[in-house]
């Protein structure tokens, strides 16, 4: 019984710690992608897309695949965008990244 209690306590402690750490990492990824996309050129969008795709494993382990795929699609569209479309793409990506960033963030809105 004692062993089970220790395991249970360890799980209860580790889950929020792991969650907080992963939340921090996802925030970092979103910041990196946002920085790339704010540069506003095809090359930077391409770098942002590659960076995003290279971290899919961690992202999809916490965030629904739909949200992650939305950002991927927005980055792909941005790579092909020109002129005014670039600014639109930047806003779209910033909005989608904000959704991803706050997906697992515990606040009144997300809990209720």
């Amino acid at each position, binding site marked *: 019984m004692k062993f089970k209690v220790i395991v*249970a306590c360890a*799980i209860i402690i580790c889950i929020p710690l792991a969650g907080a750490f992963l939340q921090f990492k996802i925030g970092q990824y979103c910041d990196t992608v946002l920085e790339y996309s704010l540069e506003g050129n095809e090359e930077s969008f391409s770098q942002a897309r590659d960076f995003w795709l290279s971290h899919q494993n961690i992202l999809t382990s*916490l965030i629904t*695949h739909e949200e992650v795929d939305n950002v991927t699609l927005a980055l792909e569209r941005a790579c092909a965008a020109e002129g005014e479309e670039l600014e639109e793409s930047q806003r779209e990506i910033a909005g989608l990244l904000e959704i991803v960033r706050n997906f697992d963030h515990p606040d009144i809105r997300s809990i209720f």
Partner: protein
Amino acid sequence: MLVPFIRTLILYIVIIAAVRLMGKRQVGEMQPGELVVTILVSAVASVPVQDIDIPLSHGVIPILTLMSAEVIISAFSQRHIRFRRLLSGNPVQVISNGMLLEKEIEKLRLSLDDIMAALRLKGIFDIRDVEMAHIETNGQLSIMLKGEKHPATLKDLGIKPPQSGPFYTVISDGHIIASNLKTISKDSQWLEKVIRANGVNDPSQVYFMCADIFGSIVFCKKEGAN
């Protein structure tokens, strides 16, 4: 198809481990909190199986959390009687000296049909035979019969019972269970002797055999065994 298949296997293993860690195997023995956890675990587990867009962690994390919370709360309630009463409630007496306690039954929101069915399932067909009966915290009915209605025991009849001990399975589907053999203080030579006496040459030809410490056995050989 592959993803739901793999997810289902993973969640199945996680749930088995979680239930084993909780330490209950029968629904009928569960306290209210444990029953809630069991129902929640099955509901939560089905979500990432059915929708592969949802991360697997959204099924695994709630299961682990529920299981851990249940283990911690049950360990705490084991040591604190007030907390235990708060969580599981108190047993309630519903029959006293053969009479139904109407107010207590109403508080429990039970019907008379429920009580009578529970009595019949316990082999009681005359309520006047019951000294007292309680509805326990797990919902089961426990009964104490009146003194004169207790079944007679061998001691009452002054009969000395034959020597017997608990039976242990020593062969199961052809496999010898050595630890049980040791428990009943028997060895492989004794086992061989018994097997041959029952017309079989090898333990692998025995479907089932159990024995007690005094040497009483129940023997069943496999169909088609020599």
